[in-house]
């Protein structure tokens, strides 16, 4: 069965009275609900993709070394400088830098509050090691290299848990994609049932149109135009409801202020993707209605 988009829209009174059908009364609201859910899922997908990119970047240079503060800062600085020199000679290490004290204070502030700035608390030294992803040394190797020179050194390979977290994020991303696909399928199924009900209701009229020489495509076009108009209306409502809901969600998540949760940032791309749902939903409704009618009419004489 070949598919052709309607080449023109006929705005005069349609030959089929589908606009007065009870069968289509709830279609816009069902479409609105589906599009609302799809908009939330798409926004979720974008946020997760953002988070995944951030995590992915983290994996590229994720080894952090904590060196306990000693009693003599000068001695500490010498030990740190020696450690950095050793690290830079290790295969797979792209670079190593000690984190400025101010940055360490900032990292600890959420947990220690203003006490993090107290000179009485011995803050550890933190060495940020950038490693090459393909040839990265294991945390154990770094630990074995440094432990003879620095007691109490702790090597934290972010990659281990970041990779697990990334896998979880990707899984949730896939779930979001599957949800969007399921919503599209459910939307199409709703249109199929509505269209079939409409066809059953107007069987007599459709027969008469056949008898006067109407092609199946002529009849299908009327259902398709109606379905696309209802789809457009419904998706407009759905997007109009999803916009404020997403802004509210962003605001609430922002207020939580947890450093571990990814920041929800609704970029222009997210809004464009959500706005695209309007024509897409209308097109899905139109194509589905047309295909349903063409398939059903093919069974008639």
């Amino acid at each position, binding site marked *: 069965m070949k598919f052709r988009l309607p080449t023109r829209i006929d705005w005069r*009174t349609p*030959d089929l*009275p589908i606009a*007065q059908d009870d069968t289509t009364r709830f279609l816009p609201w069902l479409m609105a609900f589906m599009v609302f859910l799809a908009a939330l899922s798409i926004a979720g997908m974008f946020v997760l993709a953002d988070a995944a990119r951030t995590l992915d970047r983290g994996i590229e240079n994720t080894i952090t070394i904590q060196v306990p503060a000693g009693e003599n800062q000068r001695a500490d600085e010498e030990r740190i400088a020696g450690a950095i020199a050793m690290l830079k000679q290790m295969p797979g290490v792209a670079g190593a830098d000690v984190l400025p004290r101010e940055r360490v204070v900032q990292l600890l502030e959420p947990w220690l509050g203003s006490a993090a700035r107290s000179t009485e608390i011995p803050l550890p030294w933190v060495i940020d090691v950038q490693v090459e992803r393909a040839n990265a040394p294991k945390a154990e190797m770094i630990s074995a290299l440094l432990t003879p020179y620095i007691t109490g050194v702790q090597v934290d390979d972010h990659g281990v848990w970041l990779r697990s977290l990334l896998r979880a994020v990707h899984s949730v991303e896939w779930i979001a994609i599957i949800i969007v696909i399921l919503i599209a399928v459910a939307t199409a199924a709703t249109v199929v049932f509505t269209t079939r009900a409409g066809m059953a209701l107007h069987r*007599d*009229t459709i*027969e*008469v*149109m*056949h*008898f*006067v*020489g*109407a*092609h*199946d495509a*002529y009849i299908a076009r009327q259902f398709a135009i109606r379905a696309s108009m209802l789809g457009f209306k419904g998706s407009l409502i759905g997007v109009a409801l999803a916009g404020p809901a997403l802004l509210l969600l962003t605001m609430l998540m922002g207020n939580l202020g947890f450093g571990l949760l990814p920041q929800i940032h609704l970029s222009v791309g997210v809004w464009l993707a959500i706005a695209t749902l309007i024509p897409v939903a209308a097109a899905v409704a139109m194509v589905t209605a047309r295909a349903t009618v063409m398939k059903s009419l*093919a069974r008639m*004489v």
Partner: protein
Amino acid sequence: MNDVVRFESVGLRYGLGPEVLQDVSFSLDSGSFHFLVGASGAGKSSLLRLMYLAQRPSRGYISLFGRDISTTPRHELPGLRRKIGVVFQEFRLLPHLSAFDNVALPLRVVKARESEVKRHVEELLAWVGLKDHMKARPSTLSGGQQQRVAIARAVIAKPKLLLADEPTGNVDDHIAGRLMHLFGELNKLGTSVVIATHNEALVRSSGKRVLKLADGEVRILENIADDDADEFDSVFAADRGRVLL
């Protein structure tokens, strides 16, 4: 071959029921005019349904305008149907459309220009006496007026074959005369006409050939005033008997 319609050994049954038409064979020439007569339940409507492609035969061969309908692809059927005008017994007007839009339907499905549609439809509706009812919905029209709208719809596209099921059943003699005149004019222009009717007087006065349907078979009566008079009489004898009872 100049046949508009050709039936060869056509049989029709609905579901698993008995055959309502058995071994029907006949042909209609281009530009011919026939009345289709038969007792109630003889299968006149079924025969017409086969002719306007609302029904496939259970067996046999049917050709329309030289095309074997059993091998005609479905997407080419609308092209054949556009050559056929049908007046249904129960009119089958679209209730949500005005008289104008009902009559315009066959032109609009072929994407005729709206100016042409307007001109032709207005002219024809005026001709059938419905000039003042163009915007009326079928539900607001009398039975006779609805029938005239149905006839206008059937002839608007100047069909090559006109099939009418009791077209004068709901109109007075004056309108019936005008409608028969319209059918006659179309016939003169080359349209083949088949009119199913119970109106004995109408058939007698016309002097046209008759397709007699009885016992599921069709016979063509060439001259009902003379050679085929008895056979023609037998069709209506049963009806006359019922009226007398």
